[in-house]
C-alpha cells in the first residue's frame, strides 16, 4: 500500500512518484525591483513537479523565488534560503519550533506551503535584531537563561514577539496561554515566561507557572 506523505496530503494531490531535485533560483533584492527568477536546474529526471514563482519579503528583503509546489515554508527557509535559525521539531504541527511571523501572525512554518506565501512578509528569528541591536526579547532570553538546549528557542522568541506586538504588557497567564503551542522538552517554561514578562515590563519576582 502506498503511503501518503504529509506533504502530498497538504498539497492535495495524489500524483504518482515525482522526482526532481532542485537548486532553486533565489534572488535577494533590497532597493531595485525584483529580477526575473531564474529557472531552477534539476538533477532528477522528472521535471514535471509543479513549480511556481512567488514574491515574498523575508526579514525586510524582497525576494523572487521559484519553488516546488510541494515545499513547505520551513523547507524553503532552511534548505533554500539558508535561514536555519528556524527549527523543525516535528514537521507535523505539534511542537512550534518552526514558528515564524507571516504578516505579523505567528504560524507553524512546517504546516504552510511555500506557494501560499506569495505576496506575504515573513519574519524569522534572524530578522529580530535590528541594525545589530538585539530585540528586547532576545536580551531578556539571555538574562533569564531561557534557552537550555536552544532548539525550541527560535519558535519561543517568535511566538513571544507576536504576543508583545498585540499585548505589550502581558500577565503571566496571558504569556503561558499565548505560548502553550510551543513545546520545550528541557521544560524551561519558568524561565521562558519570566523572560517574556521582563521584556514586557511585567516581570514577576520569580518565574511563571500555576500559582497556588
Amino acid at each position, binding site marked *: 500500500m502506498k503511503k501518503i506523505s504529509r506533504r502530498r496530503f497538504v498539497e492535495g494531490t495524489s500524483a504518482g512518484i*515525482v522526482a526532481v531535485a532542485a537548486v532553486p533560483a533565489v534572488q535577494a533584492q533590497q532597493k531595485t525591483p525584483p529580477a526575473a527568477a531564474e529557472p531552477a536546474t534539476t538533477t*532528477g529526471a522528472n521535471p514535471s513537479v509543479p513549480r511556481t514563482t512567488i514574491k515574498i519579503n523575508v526579514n525586510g528583503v524582497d525576494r523572487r523565488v521559484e519553488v516546488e509546489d*510541494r515545499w513547505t515554508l520551513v523547507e524553503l527557509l532552511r534548505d533554500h534560503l*539558508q535561514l536555519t*535559525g528556524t*527549527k523543525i521539531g516535528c514537521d507535523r504541527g505539534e511542537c512550534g519550533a518552526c514558528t515564524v511571523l507571516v504578516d505579523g501572525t505567528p504560524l507553524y512554518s512546517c504546516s504552510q506551503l511555500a506557494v501560499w506565501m506569495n505576496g506575504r512578509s515573513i519574519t524569522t528569528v534572524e530578522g529580530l535584531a535590528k541594525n545589530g541591536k538585539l530585540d528586547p526579547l532576545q536580551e531578556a532570553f539571555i538574562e533569564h537563561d531561557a534557552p*537550555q538546549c536552544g532548539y525550541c528557542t527560535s519558535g519561543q522568541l517568535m511566538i513571544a514577539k507576536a504576543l508583545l506586538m498585540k499585548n505589550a504588557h502581558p500577565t503571566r497567564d496571558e504569556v503561558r496561554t499565548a505560548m502553550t503551542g510551543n*513545546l*520545550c522538552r528541557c*521544560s524551561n517554561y519558568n524561565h521562558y515566561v519570566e523572560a517574556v514578562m521582563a521584556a514586557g515590563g511585567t516581570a514577576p519576582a520569580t518565574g511563571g507557572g500555576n500559582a497556588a
Partner: protein
Amino acid sequence: MTPLKTVGHGTHRIDALQRVTGAAKYTSDLHLSGMLYARVLRSPHPHARIRKIDVSKAMALPGVKAILTHENCDTTWSSGDQLNQRKLFNNPVRFAGDPVAAIAAVDRHIAEDATHLIEVEYEVLPFLTDLEEALKPGAVAIHEGGNLSLNNQRQPVPQTYKRGNVADGLKAADHVFEDNFTSAHHNNAQLEMRVSVAEWSGDKLTVHAATQGIANCRTDIAKDLKLNVDNVRVISEYMGGGFGNKNQCQDSDLMAALLAKQAGAPVKLEFTRKEDFVAVHGRWSSRQSYKVGVKNDGTLTAIQFTALSGAGAYRKGSCDLSGTEIYQVPNLETSVSPVYTNTAVAANYRAPAYPQAVFGIESLMDDVAYALKMDPMEFRLKNMTRKFRDQTPYTSIGLEDCIRKGAEKFGWNQRWKPVAGSGDGPVKRGAGMAMGMFGSGLGRSSAVLRLDGQGQYHLHVGVTDVGTAAKTTMGLIAAEELGVPLEKVKVVWGDTDTCPYSVGESGSRTTVQTGMAVIEAVRDLKKQVAEKGAPKGNDVYTAMATTNPPPIQGASRNSFAAHFAEVEVNIETGHAIVTRFVSAHDSGRVVNPLTAQSQVQGGAIQGIGMALHEELLYDKRSGQPLNAGYYGARIMTHLDAPLVDVVWVETDEPYGPFGAKTLGEPTIIPTVAAVANAIHNAIGRRVKSLPITRDKILQALAKKGDVA
C-alpha cells in the same frame, strides 16, 4: 562554605547570543556541497522474518544514490544492544519500527518516495507486548535464550542485591505491608530529532552527530565500521537535547556513514518525529512488587523488592530499577528481571533506573506512614539513608536539610492534610513529598589549556553542551582556578579533532569529571607561568591533564534531593494539575546557580509529565504503537507547568571541583513520587500505575479504593 569569586555566581551562558539569534548551528542546519538526504524504511510488523526484499524499483528512481538493507549491510550496532548482536538492519525484525532499509537520494522527497518503492515480503511471526506474557512457557522467543534478558554479569538470572536477612527482618516487624506498582514506557522526546551528517575524504570519515558524547561516539563508530579511531572525526557543535537518548553512537551515525560511502557523497540522515518516538528509545517500563516490615514506632526492619523491567526488543540499557537505597534498612533484597517484548527499545532517559522505582517505594512508604498515623515527612526523616547501603559513610549528605528546608519553603505543615481525601467541593487539594539520591563518582577525563602571548586562555574540552551549559561551567571552573574573569577563557568544544577525551554528558558526570581535569590543567599552566614568566609575543604555553582518580576509599559520594508537590484534582473530571512545587537539592557547591536553576526546574516539570501524562501505548492485538508523537505523548506545555521553587543545600563536599556534586539527573528522581503522593493526599485514593491519568483517577474515585 567559602564563597568564591567566579564559581557560585549566576552567569549567562557563553553561547547565549548564538542561541537567541538563530546563529547556533545544529547538526540538521548543515548543508554540505553535493549532500544527499536519507530516509529509513521500517518494519510495519512487530515481529517478522524478511523473506525477500527487492530494492530494484527504488534504485531505478531517478535521484536515488544508495540503499542499504540487511542483504548488503551486515554492520553491527554495538551500543544498540549490550548483550545481543544487534545489526543496523536485523532479520528477523523485532518491533514495529525496526529498520529494514535506508535510502540516500538527491533530495528528501525522493528519498521518502523511494521508501515506498521497496518491496518487502515478510513472514509474520507471533509477537509479545506484555512483560508477564513474555515470560510464560511457550511464549515466542524474541532472542536466543528466551525473553528473560541476562543480568549485567551475562547470566540468565535476575539482577540482585542483598544485605542482612529479609525473612528475619519481616519476622521482627510489627507490621508487614505489601503492594505492587507499575510504570509505563515513555519517551525522551527531545526537540531535536536524531540526525547525522556523514562525509568521507578517502578513508577518513567525519560525522556531524547529534550526540551527548563526541569521544564515545567516535570510538563506537570506529569499532562498528572497523576503522582506525584516528580516521574518525566527530563534531557536535550545538545539540538539541537528549536526556540520555543520544549517548554514544547511534544507528543514524552508522547508516549515514555507510550510505555516504556507497554513494560517494556526503549524506544527511534525519529521523522523523514518529521515528523518534517508536524507533529510538524511551524509559523502560516496570512491574514492581514490595514487601516492607516496620516497627510500631515507624522503624523499618526489612524491604523486599522484586520487579520486571521492560527492555523492549533489544537490550540497549541496564534496565535496572533503583529506589530502595534512599532508606536505611538492615535487611534488603532486590531482584530485577529485564524482559524482552516486541515493542520500542528502552534505554537511558534522565536517571534511567530511578524515578519509576522511587515512585513505587515512595508511594508505599507514604501508605506505611499513613497507616502508622505518622506525618510522611517525619517518617522519612526517621528512616532516610544515613550511610550508603547502611554501612559506608557519605562524603557529604544534605538530605535532612533538603527535607527540612524544602518543607519550610513549601509550607508542608499548612499544605499537607493529615486526613487524605478530606475537604469539600469538586476540586480537592493535596500535598506530597518524596526523596531521592544519585551517585556522583569521580572518573576519567581530560582537558587542554593554552595561554598565548596576548594573555588569552584557550580551554579545550570534549563536551558538547546538551543544554546543561556544560561549556560555560568548564569556563567558570577554569576562570576560578586561574583567578581571571570568564572573558579571558575561550572555550573550545564539540570536535574530536580539537578536544581531548571527555566522558560525555551522560551520568551527570561532566561537571565533576571534566571539571577536575580542567583544574589539573590550570594548576600545570600556573606552574609553567611561575617558572618561566608569562608568555610573550608569539609564545604559547600548553598544559594537558588527564585525571583518573581511584575510587574514594571508605566513603560514597552522592547527590541528594527532596521534592514537594501540591496538586489540585477535580474529582468530577479527574483532571489533576500541579499548583506548587519545591525542589530542594544537595549537589554540593553549585557552580552556576542561574543555569543550575534551569536544570532543576526543567527536571521537575519533565517529571510531572511522567507522573500525569506520558506513556507510549501499544495495541495488544496488532503490536502497533498508538500515540507516537507530541500530541499523543502529551508532554508538558507552558500551561501545564507550575512554578518550581528551588532550594539549594550546599554541603561542604571534600571532593570534586570546588566541592561540586552531580545535578542533572537527580532533578527528576523524586518528582514523580511527590506528585503521586500529593494526588493520594488530595483524593484519599492511591493510584499505583504511571502515568496517573484522568481515567485512573476517576476509576479510583468510583471504586472507592486504590487502583492498581
